[in-house]
């Protein structure tokens, strides 16, 4: 399903950003009766998606990107992440609406298939997604999308530079960093240090409320989104045995050496 790379005319770069609405990272999530308790918890834009949005908006400010489109695949209420995206400077927003009942089991693979379908329609030069959603922690959607559309991928991106129809990506890897150069269209996965996202100002937020959002139900896309994983059980992790406070460094040393025997 790969698209022939059509040379981008000078200054005609289209960027699509994937944005996810997630349980806010500061929420201490609980599990009860084999269910993750997400009713009435604070929801936010996934932190890595904020970084992805910021990078796209900066590309636009540098006049490298001429159009930035934000996409979310989520429940009806997820349209707030698109309002934020437009307040930050995205030109358009697409909301692929998922019924509430399906949302809990919507997998990264399904989301990647939806985005791959949109890739055929939108034909962007660059996808920027967050590297990982802080709810599922799969960290796979960008790579799945890249695999489905057979585009090169720049994961754990801490810096990107677009020039001459390619994108140079500095990636954070386990031993340090790596620089790769990708042909466009490419998929970039934003990591923590790619940028520091800005806050939208109140005026932009108010204006964004009035902008139209292209809303489409997920079942109209002709994409198979049924889950491949069945959740057998969810539970909280076993709690650690309570520890003790020591009063001095000498006591700490003694405990570590003679009680725990790890020093």
């Amino acid at each position, binding site marked *: 399903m790969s698209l022939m790379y059509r040379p981008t005319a000078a200054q005609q770069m289209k960027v699509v950003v994937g944005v996810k609405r997630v349980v806010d990272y500061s929420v*201490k999530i609980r599990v009860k009766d084999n269910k993750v308790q997400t009713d009435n918890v604070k929801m936010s834009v996934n932190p890595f998606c904020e970084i992805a949005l910021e990078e796209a908006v900066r590309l636009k400010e540098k006049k490298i990107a001429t159009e930035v489109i934000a996409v979310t695949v989520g429940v009806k209420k997820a349209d707030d992440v698109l309002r934020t995206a437009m307040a930050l400077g995205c030109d358009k927003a697409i909301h692929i609406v998922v019924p509430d009942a399906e949302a809990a089991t919507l997998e990264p693979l399904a989301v990647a298939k939806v985005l791959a379908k949109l890739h055929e329609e939108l034909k962007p030069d660059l996808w920027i997604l967050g590297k990982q959603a802080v709810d599922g922690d799969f960290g796979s959607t960008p790579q799945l999308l890249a695999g489905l559309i057979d585009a090169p*991928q720049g994961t754990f991106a801490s810096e990107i530079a677009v020039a001459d129809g390619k994108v140079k990506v500095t990636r954070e890897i386990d031993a340090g960093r790596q620089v790769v150069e990708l042909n466009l269209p490419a998929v970039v996965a934003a*990591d923590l240090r790619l940028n520091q996202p800005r806050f939208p100002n109140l005026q932009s937020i108010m204006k964004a409320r009035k902008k139209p959002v292209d809303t489409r139900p997920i079942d109209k896309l002709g994409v198979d989104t049924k889950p491949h994983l069945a959740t057998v059980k969810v539970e909280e992790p076993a709690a650690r045995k309570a520890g003790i406070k020591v009063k001095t460094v000498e006591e700490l040393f003694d405990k570590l050496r003679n009680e725990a025997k790890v020093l």
Partner: protein
Amino acid sequence: MSTRALGKALVIAETLEGKLVPATLAAITAAAKVGPVTAFASGKDAAAAAEQLSKVAGVQQVLVASGAAVSSGLPEELAPVVKSVVETNGITHVFAATSAFSKNVIPRVAAKFDAMPICDITAVQGEDTFVRHAYAGNVVATVKSADAVKFATVRGTSFERAAATGGSAPIAAVAEGGAASGKSKWLEDLIAKSDKPDLATAATVVAGGRGLKSGENFKLLEALAAPLKAAVGATRAVVDAGYCPNDMQVGQTGKTIAPTLYIGAGISGAIQHIAGMKESKVIAVINTDADAPFFQVADYGLVGDLFEAVPALTKLVKG
């Protein structure tokens, strides 16, 4: 365990400076739970990796891809080779130790098989049932996969490492399909050479957070780490602030570690950091704030100033 026919597992091996990473040995243990294990070596150290893999207990066969296209580990080049290996060898499960490398490759290959990758598994309960964590480690989920070919990354600290000797598997080269696709190009690796212990596998880790106040002050932790032969880790906050390089980050979106002893100084204990180290056997915390959340997971907590406590502890350790 099911009485169905055993699966056939492929483990994508990883090396660091020519040596198999210990986490790959853990991935082999995980893989062996579903069926006979074929190990796959690729990249510029492929031949060295293959030699080591052939001696690992539990590896039945070693396959090597040592062509130029895959020598830099580019996922665009590696994915089609792995796909071909899976199809040619009737592989039912593809595993790799969780790492930046495997996270880059495994999902891309999974997409080619219409499979949902299961990331960072901590237990194997059957050929189709695996345990993993979500919500920064606050949810433990047991999932069952319906995929014909299953893909998973394996948390290296959750499984015993397979013995490095005792095996004698044959090594064979795989068909690599010629020239690189050219969609991506490796330019350079920026790796700080270090003779210090590897953070992912050190038995002792000394970690620092915002309480250190500057990158310069990490010298205090290095002074403690040296006699302990410990690795030094960091929180996301200090990496973001530029005190430390990114490869030192421990946490939900950094490295997951499980040393025998973890000493945290000047770290408040955000959920996201704890997610990356809570399986440590013994946790010692030093912080001036008695209410720091980190004390809740500490086996031993010292409310005190790290600028006094760490040098004092270093002195005691040195005897």
